């Protein structure tokens, strides 16, 4: 089976332990962090394994790309530590298992994977998008969300087959062999997690924002500047692919939207709290959400922009209650587009 | 019988009888006759019983089936996945009755009149275009739009008045349109709704051939029944046209300021015709036309849009009167509802609704309190000519 490319020696000599010291939730000083890192290297029972909120931040903070979070998940699973209640985990595992009903389609470029979010389909209309080919379904689901449930084994089991489904059923007629990934998590699966486990990805993943940026850039005459202050709710999975962050700023610039300066943004972004609630850590989720929303409100934003539908489900109502409009990035682009 | 494989799936739960908020019984035949057999669920179970030889076709069975006036409330509110087939199922069952010759006398007479006279009024074909005499309205000769008037618009007094108002407004706005006049024949919507699918097919194919021959691409209909059949059924027979209801065109003309509208103070409530509303989802265009008129106050009946209560003119009942009269007849119920809004005018967009509601006003003795006017007439009044 697939082994994580985790370099124990690299962690052992790390002076800063950024992964744990900078963790927004554990509040560890360097001395404590070093002790816990040692346990993680040895595979011992560390408090990190039970306290981790699975926000993925440490993957971003590690200056060596040594996959601290993936290591945590491996240890959680091997030590039977469950971040979320087992019935919730098991139901989630069942609900997105492949069903073997994928069909071969002759899709020409561009091909967009909507993963498990068919609701995005209706947003991909009009001249801005020119009806790109897209697909979704359980047979194409990236499965990366099971990191939140400490189930690397599920991802290892399913992902090779998912990749094969995509390659043979959806990209067979593609000339570019590029796959535009709607969700940060899909893109991160193929560019971060799969390589970390030595799983080959035959196609070239493209971040949806890159596609969006290029589409808008090619048709600036159709854009009416939005002239609004926006907050961006950074999805946790973007932490796995921080090099893609810049697209957010690039798109906002094209749209004339001003991304406000606020405390809990970019590297300091807060988890939406949705996963925490599933884990049963409602008080923590509540605190984070209040901090996050108060931060947005204080910055006087007009919109809170999401890319992740799960973040949107979790926060939209609360955002609205503060007279801020929740909106998906794709809808913000459509808003500024003159058909 | 078509759809016989799904008839057994009806659970007779009764959602089909109500409005969305369960406020009212919204199935006109059930409201009128009260027995469960006259509800959509009742029909489904009886059709199945007939298919299973548990009951035989009878005049009472026929009455029950033909009392469905195809208003579409059941289709709107049924909670099951086969809901969109409900009216098709009732129509298929009626077709079985037609092929057995077991239809109520009024239905039989309607079919006979349609076959012989090609209109339900037994009037000569030559009279068909006479409503346009004295106007500037031209015969169709490759103009942008064909203005299709229909049976009621051609022969019924109220319908003819509507046709003149619509034609007048279209002319004032400089729209390029023409009419078929005495060349026009019946659209066949109600023939189909009553199960005579062979006569319908003949009427439809004749119309499609004629329209193609003379180069018709866009059609404005007066009657929502024609709108429905041209939009939904004619394409299946090779007749693909761009179809508009006149309220949509008037809305466009008003928004483009191709007509000048002055103020007109009146309190109006709008009655959604089933074939425009529930069947084709056009709820706002007629309202927008009314809202264009300064001084006009638009008030809604409790049952509006998807929940509108049918006037009783649909499904051929306008000609066959299976539902009959009486204080529980749909048109009288609807007029009482309109009156309760405090409106002085019931605005309509269908010539059948116009006549049905007008008759009901008389039955309710409300002539001094409320009147029926179609949207074209209201707009015509407000337009600066």
């Amino acid at each position, binding site marked *: 089976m697939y082994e994580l490319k985790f370099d124990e020696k690299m962690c052992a000599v790390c002076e800063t332990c950024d992964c744990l010291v900078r963790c927004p939730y554990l509040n560890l000083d360097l001395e404590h962090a070093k002790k816990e890192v040692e346990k993680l290297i040895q595979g011992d029972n560390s408090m990190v394994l039970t306290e981790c909120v699975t926000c993925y931040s440490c993957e971003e903070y590690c200056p060596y790309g040594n996959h601290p979070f993936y290591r945590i998940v491996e240890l959680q699973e091997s030590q039977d530590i*469950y971040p*979320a*209640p*087992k*019935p*919730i985990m*098991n*139901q989630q595992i*069942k*609900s997105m*298992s492949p069903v073997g009903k994928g069909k071969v389609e002759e899709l020409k470029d561009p091909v967009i994977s909507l993963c498990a979010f068919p609701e995005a389909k209706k947003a991909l209309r009009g001249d801005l998008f020119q009806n790109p080919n897209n697909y979704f379904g359980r047979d194409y689901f990236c499965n990366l969300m099971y990191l939140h449930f400490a189930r690397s084994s599920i991802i290892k089991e399913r992902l090779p087959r998912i990749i094969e489904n995509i390659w043979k059923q959806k990209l067979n007629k593609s000339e570019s062999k590029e796959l535009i990934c709607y969700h940060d998590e899909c893109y991160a699966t193929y560019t971060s997690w799969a390589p970390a486990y030595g799983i080959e990805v035959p196609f070239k993943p493209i971040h949806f924002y890159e596609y969006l940026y290029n589409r808008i850039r090619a048709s600036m005459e159709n854009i009416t500047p939005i002239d609004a202050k926006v907050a961006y709710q950074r999805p946790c999975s973007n932490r796995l692919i921080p090099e893609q962050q810049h697209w957010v700023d690039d798109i906002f610039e094209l749209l004339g939207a001003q991304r406000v300066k606020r405390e809990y943004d970019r590297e300091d972004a807060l988890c939406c709290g*949705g996963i925490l*609630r*599933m*884990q*049963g850590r*409602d008080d923590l989720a509540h605190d984070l959400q209040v901090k996050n929303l108060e931060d947005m409100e204080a910055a006087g934003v007009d919109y809170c922009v999401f890319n992740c539908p799960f973040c949107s*489900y*979790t926060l*939209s*109502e609360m955002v609205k*209650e503060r007279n801020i409009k929740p909106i998906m990035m794709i809808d913000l682009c459509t808003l500024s587009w003159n058909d | 019988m078509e759809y016989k494989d799904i008839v*057994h*799936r*009806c*659970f*007779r*739960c*009764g*959602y089909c*009888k*109500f*409005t969305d*908020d*369960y*406020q*009212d019984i919204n199935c006109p035949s059930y409201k009128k*006759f*009260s*027995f*469960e*057999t006259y509800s959509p669920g*009742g029909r489904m*179970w*009886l059709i199945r*019983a007939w298919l299973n030889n*548990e*009951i*035989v076709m*009878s005049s*009472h*069975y026929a009455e*029950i089936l033909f009392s469905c006036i195809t208003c579409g409330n059941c289709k709107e509110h049924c*909670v*099951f*996945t*086969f809901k969109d087939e409900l009216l098709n199922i009732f129509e298929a069952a009626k077709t079985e009755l037609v092929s057995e010759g077991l239809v109520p006398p009024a239905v039989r007479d309607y079919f006979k009149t349609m076959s012989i006279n090609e209109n339900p009024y037994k009037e000569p074909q030559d009279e068909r275009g006479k409503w346009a005499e004295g106007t500037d309205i031209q015969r169709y000769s490759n103009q942008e739009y064909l203005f299709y008037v229909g049976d009621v618009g051609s022969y019924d007094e109220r319908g003819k008045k509507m046709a003149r108002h619509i034609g007048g407004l279209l002319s004032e706005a400089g729209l390029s349109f023409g009419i078929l006049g005495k060349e026009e024949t019946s659209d066949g919507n109600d023939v189909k709704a009553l199960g005579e699918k062979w006569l319908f097919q003949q009427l439809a194919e004749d119309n499609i051939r004629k329209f193609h021959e003379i180069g018709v691409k866009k059609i404005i209909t007066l009657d929502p029944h024609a709108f429905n059949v041209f939009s939904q059924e004619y394409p299946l027979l090779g007749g693909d046209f761009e179809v508009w209801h006149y309220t949509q065109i008037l809305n466009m003309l008003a928004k483009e300021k191709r007509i000048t509208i002055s103020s007109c103070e009146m309190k109006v409530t709008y009655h959604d015709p089933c074939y425009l509303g529930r069947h084709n989802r056009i709820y706002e265009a007629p309202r927008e036309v009314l809202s264009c008129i300064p001084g006009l106050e638009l008030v809604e009946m409790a049952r509006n849009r998807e929940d509108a209560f049918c006037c009783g003119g649909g499904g051929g009942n306008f000609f066959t009167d299976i539902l009959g009269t009486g204080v529980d007849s749909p048109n009288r119920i609807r007029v009482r509802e309109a009156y309760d809004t405090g409106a002085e005018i019931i605005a309509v967009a269908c010539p059948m609704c116009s006549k049905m509601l007008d008759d009901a006003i008389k039955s309710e003795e409300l002539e001094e309190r409320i009147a029926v006017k179609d949207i074209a007439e209201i707009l015509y009044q407000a337009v600066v000519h």
Partner: protein
Amino acid sequence: MEKIYNALTDIVGSGYVSKEPEELFFYSRDQGTSEPKIPDFVVMPRTTQEIQRIVLLANKEKLPIIPMGGSLTLSGLCIPHRKGVVLDLKRMDSILEVNETSRYVLVEPGVSQGALQSYLAIKHPELMHSIPDAPPANTIAGNILIHGSGHLSQETGFHTEMLNGLEVVLPTGEICKTGSGSISPKWFARAPLPDLTGLFLGWFGTTGVVTKLSIRLYPKPLKKDVMMFVTENPDHIPDIIYRVTGTKMAEDVNLFAQPKPDWAEGFQQTVINITGDSEEEMSFKRRLIRKSVEHYIKSKEGGFMLVLPQLKPAMKEAPLRELTRFADMMKGGGFEYVGGIIPTESFPQAYYDTLEIAEKYRPKWSIMCRVIGRGHAMMFAYSWPFNRADAKDVEMSRKALFESNISSLKNGGVIWKSELEGQRMMMEKMDPNTLNLLQKIKRTLDPNGIMNPGNWEVV
């Protein structure tokens, strides 16, 4: 029969009596698996006096009378087992009085749940009644008289506990009132008089025709939310119910389990509805409910599923349209359930019994439970869908229903709104003196045995 037909026509008018095969067919059956039985007539009275005259006629002619509301019990309670007259009461659809201060409404027996729900929402938006999950066509009377339950039952018990009194036409023709309405012009209470109301509750129309009911109304909250607690071990459920109901924070507590969709199999979903008038109140209630099951969350044995915002409206509906859709699960338009009223601690065994029965007869099944009172009981519905067009399939459901009845009784429960077979099972188990009393009351009130015969009858 012609003489009787003419007499009935004389009472209600020719438009409201039918002996046509079509009406007789329709009213001979319901949506469940019970065998149909053709009546002699279907009659739709409009007034109490018309009903009285019909009852007197029926006594004279020894004609059975079967009162009918929405006919949505699914267990054949309105099927005329010995022919006779089916009394469709839905023309008696007036809402007679709403007393806001004392919070009650007086209705005729044909008033539907939907009509009352809507009426209150428009005219008395601060008040509501307890709404069952049966389709809105079901009548207030029909649901109450069978001891129904609804969305307020977790707080206030069976719907019969929300009943203030009745007007009823006795089988011998007298018109009688029970509760405070028998003394006062106000229908606000059942106590403290000798409880005659009980003579008509759960009797399936064998003791009279109810012509008015007064039911309690409740303050209608401004906000509603839904929480879903998921477990994999049914043995935990009684304790979870005990804890959640012990907080007194929930309005409605239901439990679902089913094999489809595939992600649902093996899980129990406890759906907890909370209501309140402010977000503060709602947050407080959520917190207390979460705290009550903290033990299960911490031990990872249970957790709250995130309910997607787009799914919440359907889950907060009353009645739940989704439950009706279950009827078409086999693409067959049929379903029937045994509603076992069981003590909460019997849930696990009832659950296991359902799986066993499913194994034998039905791959598709559903368990739906509603908690009654603060966990005093559960309405455990062993639900079996079937394809009405397939006689073998119907028979399999019948067998599953039969064994579900056995399970209910074996687990210390009582069968709710039971069909004849289940009634027989209960009477066999019943304390003999109780059974004797039941028969005595029936004989006394209905000496000619005309009221819905076949029901509660010792064979």
